[in-house]
């Protein structure tokens, strides 16, 4: 994976903007930013210590060719998809999608940070939801609670006990999901086939991009 990182760095040399434009989804929007600061000011995650670079700063870093700073940043993973920046951006830059596009690209070339909590959530959610076509909430919660070990998992579970029981009583949470039962979609194998096809197409698309891009 780190191989792909080096390949890309080498291919695009000092043109990180071009790399992002061609390789990251929605990357072509980066040059539209006019640095007004509305996205950063609108972002609700500013209180989090992991938020080292807000969107507008990421965009400027990309334009300034600061490849290492961007790829080492936690900024794009911290997005909660609240879409405040997206709806307010005076240039109609789809900021939320651009941030996800950059995060996905960094992950693809093996540059995602280790033990990144939102990255962990995304992966866990994806595996969980694609298994039966619907989310198994109990197993999803368990895997998040216990990600840092048994002790802290039990502690978190005890803290949320009241809420969980309330959900069960209200019929919003099925405890049987813990055993792999609960709701599933009607045609599980159909969903799997669809996802496999989509993955195949995406891989093809990205491989083609990686092969031809930056060579002109």
């Amino acid at each position, binding site marked *: 994976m780190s191989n792909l990182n080096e390949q890309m760095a080498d291919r695009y040399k000092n043109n990180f903007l071009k790399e992002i434009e061609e390789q990251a989804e929605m990357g072509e929007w980066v040059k539209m930013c006019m640095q007004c600061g509305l996205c950063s000011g609108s972002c609700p995650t500013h209180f989090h210590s992991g938020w080292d670079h807000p969107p507008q700063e990421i965009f400027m870093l990309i334009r300034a060719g600061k490849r290492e700073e961007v790829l080492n940043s936690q900024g794009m993973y911290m997005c909660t998809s609240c879409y405040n920046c997206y709806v*307010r951006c005076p240039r109609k830059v789809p900021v939320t999608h651009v941030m996800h596009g950059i995060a996905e690209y960094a992950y693809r070339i093996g540059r995602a940070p280790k033990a990144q909590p939102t990255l962990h959530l995304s992966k866990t959610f994806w595996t969980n939801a694609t298994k039966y076509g619907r989310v198994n909430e109990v197993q999803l919660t368990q895997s998040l609670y216990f990600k840092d070990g048994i002790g802290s998992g039990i502690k978190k579970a005890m803290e949320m006990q009241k809420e969980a029981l309330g959900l069960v009583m209200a019929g919003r949470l099925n405890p049987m999901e813990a055993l792999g039962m609960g709701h599933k979609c009607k045609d599980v194998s159909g969903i799997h086939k669809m996802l496999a096809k989509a993955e195949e197409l995406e891989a093809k698309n990205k491989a083609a991009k990686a092969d031809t891009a930056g060579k002109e």
Partner: protein
Amino acid sequence: MTSVVATNQTILVVGGGISGMTAALEAAETGKQVVLVERNPYLGGRTVQLYRYFPKMCHPTCGLEINLRRLKANPRIQVLTMAEVTGITGGKGNYSVSLKLKPRFVNENCTACGDCAQAVQTEIDDAYNYNLTKVKAAFLPSIFAYPQRYVIDPSIVGGAEGEAAKAACKYNAVDLTMKEETVTLNAGAIVWATGWKPYDAEKIVYYGYDRFPNVVTNVEFERMADPRGPTGGKILRPSDGKEAKNVAFIQCAGSRDENHLRHCSRFCCMGSLKQTHYVQEAFGDEGKSTIYYIDIRAIDRFEDFYQKVKANPNVSFVKSKVARITQDKDGNPVCNGVNTEGYLRYATAHDLVVLAVGMEPEVKGVSIPAEVMSDSSGFVMADPANAGIFGAGCATNALDVNRAVQSATAAALRAIQVVNKVARAEG
């Protein structure tokens, strides 16, 4: 009945603001017949609603007075106020234009003595002061109004108040029998100078213009600074009447925004820089102004003005588009955002926030009763297929007064060329 003398060598000017007045005067002073049509009961448009001009900080009354003197001295201009164009047919050199004239209920006998207003109790919104205050339903729109005649609001006509106004008039000037009229006239060329309106600040939801009393617009602030305005020239905040000594100006409130106005409105940077002078003059070193901006667009010779404001220690600049306005427990509006110079997050309370709202063309969304092209912001463009109608001033673009006058002079020249051609053809 209102009679209008017009032929196909007449130039019709639609809109009696600074652009329309200029176009009408320039054309008439070359010897052309001009009909000047204005929707309001007075001439001068949004220019007379300004307190001071940039960059010389002089009063609009001065320049306007010169124009009015030229107008009064020129028999070739016929002015129709409270008039709107409802239809245009025909083509270059031979238009037929229909107008709707609203009744003023006051005739030319009026001496502007004000006795009718004394007799009337009913109050209506004061449009001249952007509805910040009320006026009597018999009113002179502004001290500087031309024609210098009172107006009686239709709401009191047909009632006791209307009769009281009539009875109070010593000059037989109140005529409650006036009716709406429709007039058709000829014109060889038309100058379209319908101007602009301030962008509706309520639409910028995150600035809370409709929720927070101490968030006002730049045009309202202009009225607040004017000694003849609703606060008598004192800069007081609307919620509690406290002196607003710490004022924030938010630039690009609506402008340069694909969700609001796509264009740069051009005048608002200079407008806010000018308005920091009002704060400084009112409170001296106690008056603090903060300008939140994306970039300051003070073009060519205005750069000097910007540099002087920048050198004032009582004015600070924050390079940031404010993301949200909230309100603290004392009713102070709080600007929230990120200062892009250093990426510092701020939540700064001010006494008053002024939104530097942009220019929206008055004709946007209104169908002009003729084939006229407009650009993606709704401004009128020259249409080669309809070569007898010319845009002027802020109907064509976001302009300051100076550039609006230049644009109007250019439009007048084009209109003159059209009617000259008609005159030659008719021998």
